[in-house]
């Protein structure tokens, strides 16, 4: 399993519906060489779920290679092309090489064994870059699945592009953890929550986490340290209050 945010040790993977659907969607995309989108607010576990799904990638019992790319806001088509060539070949692209030939070369590079290309922070792409990826994906010689993963505004950006909207085979919106499910989920998340009661766990969620797994990881890392320092096995109101103080009083 991937590392939890903030280097948190001892935490379990929460098999939420979104987490399990991610594995299914990634498998479906690879099987159909199709395009998918996973999007949702930051900290809701998208990247963790995708990384976990990538660890078990196979297609017809053959391993599938995944390439995860992320770009600064507003990348150019040249930057996307160079990043893809570098990811596929390991070689840096000479700046004098024309993007036209690199694009043509990519159709060849992507024509071999099945692959998965993951574009993280996909909301940063503009229409030209999405068109470039469409060009490569639609080409009859290429064989790869394409997964866009993005945070706030991702679906709004991607769905504005008709060429992408009509090609999305799977789409999964991530949401923060439902408040009502937080106590049960968190008691299985880390041993310090095993004996915690519902009101305390809901107070932590209301104060610090707001259903965000990333914020829960940060809080838990802090609380584990405080429990260790005070000789406790389980969190209580005192530890929670101290953690709130260390985390800015729970102010978001």
């Amino acid at each position, binding site marked *: 399993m991937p590392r939890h945010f903030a280097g948190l040790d001892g935490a379990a993977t929460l098999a939420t519906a979104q987490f399990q659907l991610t594995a299914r969607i990634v498998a479906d995309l690879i099987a159909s060489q199709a395009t998918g989108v996973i999007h949702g607010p930051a900290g809701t576990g998208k990247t963790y779920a995708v990384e976990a799904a990538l660890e078990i990638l196979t297609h017809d019992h053959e391993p599938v290679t995944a390439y995860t790319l992320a770009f600064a806001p507003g990348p150019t*088509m040249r930057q996307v092309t160079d990043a893809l060539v570098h990811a596929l070949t390991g070689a840096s692209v000479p700046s004098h090489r024309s993007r036209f030939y690199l694009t043509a070369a990519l159709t060849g590079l992507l024509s071999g064994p099945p692959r998965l290309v993951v574009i993280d922070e996909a909301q940063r792409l503009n229409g030209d870059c999405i068109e470039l990826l469409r060009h490569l994906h639609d*080409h009859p010689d290429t064989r790869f699945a394409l997964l866009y993963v993005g945070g706030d505004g991702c679906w709004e950006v991607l769905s504005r592009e008709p060429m992408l909207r*009509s090609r999305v085979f799977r789409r999964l919106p991530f949401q923060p953890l439902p408040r009502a499910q937080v106590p049960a989920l968190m008691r299985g998340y880390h041993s310090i929550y095993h004996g915690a009661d519902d009101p305390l766990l809901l107070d932590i969620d209301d104060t610090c986490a707001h259903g965000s797994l990333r914020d829960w990881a940060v809080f838990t890392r802090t609380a584990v340290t405080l429990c260790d320092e005070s000789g406790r096995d389980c969190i209580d109101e005192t530890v929670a209050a101290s953690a709130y103080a260390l985390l800015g009083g729970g102010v978001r």
Partner: protein
Amino acid sequence: VTSTSTRTRRPRTVVVDNPADDAAITAHLTAVAGLAAGRAIIRPTPGAVSVGELGLDVLVAAGVSAESARQQHVTGLCWEYGRAWLAGYQVTDIITDRAHRLTAAQLEALGGLAADLGASLWLVWASTSDPATAITTLRRRTGREVERISVWDFHGQLRPAEPDTARAVAGPWPTLPEADFITFLAA
């Protein structure tokens, strides 16, 4: 260069309206493609806005590697080479995907290519933008009226090529030489 094939159909210039950018047309283009059947599919490289770069896409549509053209320093002649290869294949239909992204100069060059070859030109217009300017350019360059049809009509009017039965019964494949190939020459 003009194809010497016997043509029974009047060459047409057709804009295929695909305002929703329906992805199904991608599979249809692959199904109808085939130089042996006289159909060339041009897939313009995104961001390639010059006539010369589109010429390289034409070359690729004619089954020739653009990289080979670069290595042989003939990229400046890509339109001439592409036209010659397409004439050699007796191409009757030139289908251009993503035509809405082409510049006026690129559309004019495509119109000239189709007129020279006496081939029908199909332009897939995957946009809600008005193709009126493109139609004017194409009408002037090809000397033909420009038709507009829907994706649905396109599927009906340009069907997947029939298997080449004449070629299939022509006989067995030639015997391969036993000697190893040291290198492959670029086309």
